[in-house]
């Protein structure tokens, strides 16, 4: 995890049992069995420090930001802006005002589509996405292209679930305004070669948005090194609260973009003749923001900075490697998504069973997985399947929990077949 924020010294070596103590929900029992939470791709659990930060805010300094003439508002504003700074450091952005608070990845993408997209994408232009995108990174572009008379181009994905890079670069031309692509596929776990994706797009003068929703919890992100124009993610997939998301954008680009929503906070001066908009980042933050949520995300980033990122990554690599070994040895199991570069997702099918049945029975054993199309119907359609069972891991998962999944699957098979 990102270690550049201010917090206590890293605790090494990686002690997963110690770390689990930080997440109170992991002690839960489901029908008198320990919870085995393998749905981290949907949302991650929250450490106690995040819960404390939110409670502390409401108990001690709840007030509106940037406007009160009183102590509480000063404290809230300070904490809120400090959280923005923590996100800046986490992403290694150049400026804190390049960090825009939204309510989630989906809103971040919609903001770019509505603001940058409406201003920049004209009839005859094109927007490039990939075949493995989440619906949130498909539909906003589809709508934008429909309205603008632009073309939505879909970069191909091979049978292993990898982007076909030549197929992607062949779609780029001088009329490509934007490339919007997942850093990591939520349905398959594929890690896309984002650095190369950005370079190819920039070579034709296109801007690039990277959807980092499934990436940020797994390794440090450096938006300057990636040189992407936009990077988006959700707090709740990074151990923070729901209802908060991030849009990172390059300063120069954000400055040229029109506001997205209108109201309080985002204005500098209003008369009935004319309104002057506020500067970055407030221009894009109409209305009272999710103050507690932002502070909670800041606390999550602080928490991550107490962990040794290389140890976290090594543990996650061990988990997914072991899960794959068990999966390959399991009769009748087909892994969906076998990219060479892959992160903590095991998507699979078991011959003769429906994912929903598998998920329902695993739930009876306290094992939480996701089943279905994972909001990525086009890639499911390409693979000719209705959906998958998806186990997605985080650093607080254990090898014993991987075993619990497969013990559960043995039972599922005996019940269904």
């Amino acid at each position, binding site marked *: 995890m990102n270690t550049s924020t201010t917090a206590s010294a890293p605790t090494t070596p990686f002690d997963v049992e110690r770390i689990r103590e930080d997440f109170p929900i992991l002690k839960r029992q489901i029908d008198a069995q320990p919870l085995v939470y393998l749905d981290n791709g949907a949302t991650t659990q929250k450490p106690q420090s995040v819960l404390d930060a939110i409670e502390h805010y409401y108990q001690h300094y709840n007030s509106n930001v940037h406007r009160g003439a009183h102590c509480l508002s000063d404290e809230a504003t300070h904490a809120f802006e400090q959280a923005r700074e923590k996100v800046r450091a986490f992403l290694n952005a150049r400026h804190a005002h390049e960090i825009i608070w939204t309510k989630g990845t989906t809103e971040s993408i919609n903001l770019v589509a509505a603001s940058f997209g409406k201003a920049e994408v004209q009839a005859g232009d094109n927007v490039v996405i990939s075949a493995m995108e989440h619906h949130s990174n498909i539909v906003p572009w589809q709508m934008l292209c429909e309205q603008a008379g632009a073309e939505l181009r879909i970069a191909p994905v091979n049978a292993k679930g990898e982007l076909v890079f030549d197929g992607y670069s062949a779609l780029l031309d001088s009329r490509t305004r934007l490339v919007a692509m997942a850093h990591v596929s939520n349905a398959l776990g594929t890690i896309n070669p984002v650095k190369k994706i950005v370079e190819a797009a920039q070579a034709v003068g296109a801007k690039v948005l990277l959807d980092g929703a499934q990436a940020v919890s797994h390794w440090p992100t450096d938006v300057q090194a990636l040189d992407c124009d936009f990077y988006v993610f959700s707090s709740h997939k990074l151990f923070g609260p729901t209802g908060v998301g991030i849009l990172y954008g390059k300063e120069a680009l954000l400055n040229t973009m029109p506001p997205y929503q209108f109201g309080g906070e985002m204005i500098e001066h209003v008369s009935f003749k004319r309104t002057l908009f506020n500067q970055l980042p407030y221009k894009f933050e109409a209305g009272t923001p999710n103050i507690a949520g932002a502070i909670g995300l800041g606390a999550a980033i602080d928490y991550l900075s107490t962990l040794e990122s290389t140890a976290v990554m090594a543990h996650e690599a061990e988990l997914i490697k072991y899960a794959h070994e068990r999966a390959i040895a399991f009769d009748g199991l087909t892994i969906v998504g076998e990219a060479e570069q892959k992160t903590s997702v095991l998507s699979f099918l078991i011959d003769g069973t429906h*994912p929903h049945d598998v998920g*329902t029975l695993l739930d*009876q054993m306290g094992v939480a997985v996701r089943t279905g*199309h994972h909001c990525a119907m086009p890639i499911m359609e390409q693979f000719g399947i209705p*959906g998958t069972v998806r186990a997605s891991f985080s650093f607080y998962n254990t090898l014993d929990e991987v075993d619990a999944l497969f013990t559960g699957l043995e*039972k599922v098979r005996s*019940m*269904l077949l």
Partner: protein
Amino acid sequence: MSEPSQPFGDTITSQDLLEDLAFFDTWEERYKYIIDLGKQLPSMPEELKTEERLVRGCQSQVWLEPVFDGQNLRFWVDSDAFIVKGLLAVVMSAYNHQSPGAIQSFDIEHFFGQIDLLKHLSPTRGNGLRAVVKRIQSLADTYA
């Protein structure tokens, strides 16, 4: 179109299911029983599994085709998932081959509560089951 014919709501009633389920102590037994019920539910002819008959769930698909003979409602019903199909058999034990008035007066929430499967009727499960129940209830309102 062939006529729907199935034991649920006819020779197998909701009361029968409640009595059977009372014998089981573990979730494994209960679910195996539900899965077996699904296997007793005749498959819907493939040609009936059209878009219009699809009750969309996010995680599994359900098809429903009602037939009203002037007195009772009967149903073709199917799912691509075993457990959902079994739960549909449970729903059929209450609703199939019943008059619209009987469907209207049947307390399905209470019934599902009694067999400890209420969570499957929850809208959050996204399995299409609640949509089927609602659809049948509104059909009953139409024909009553």
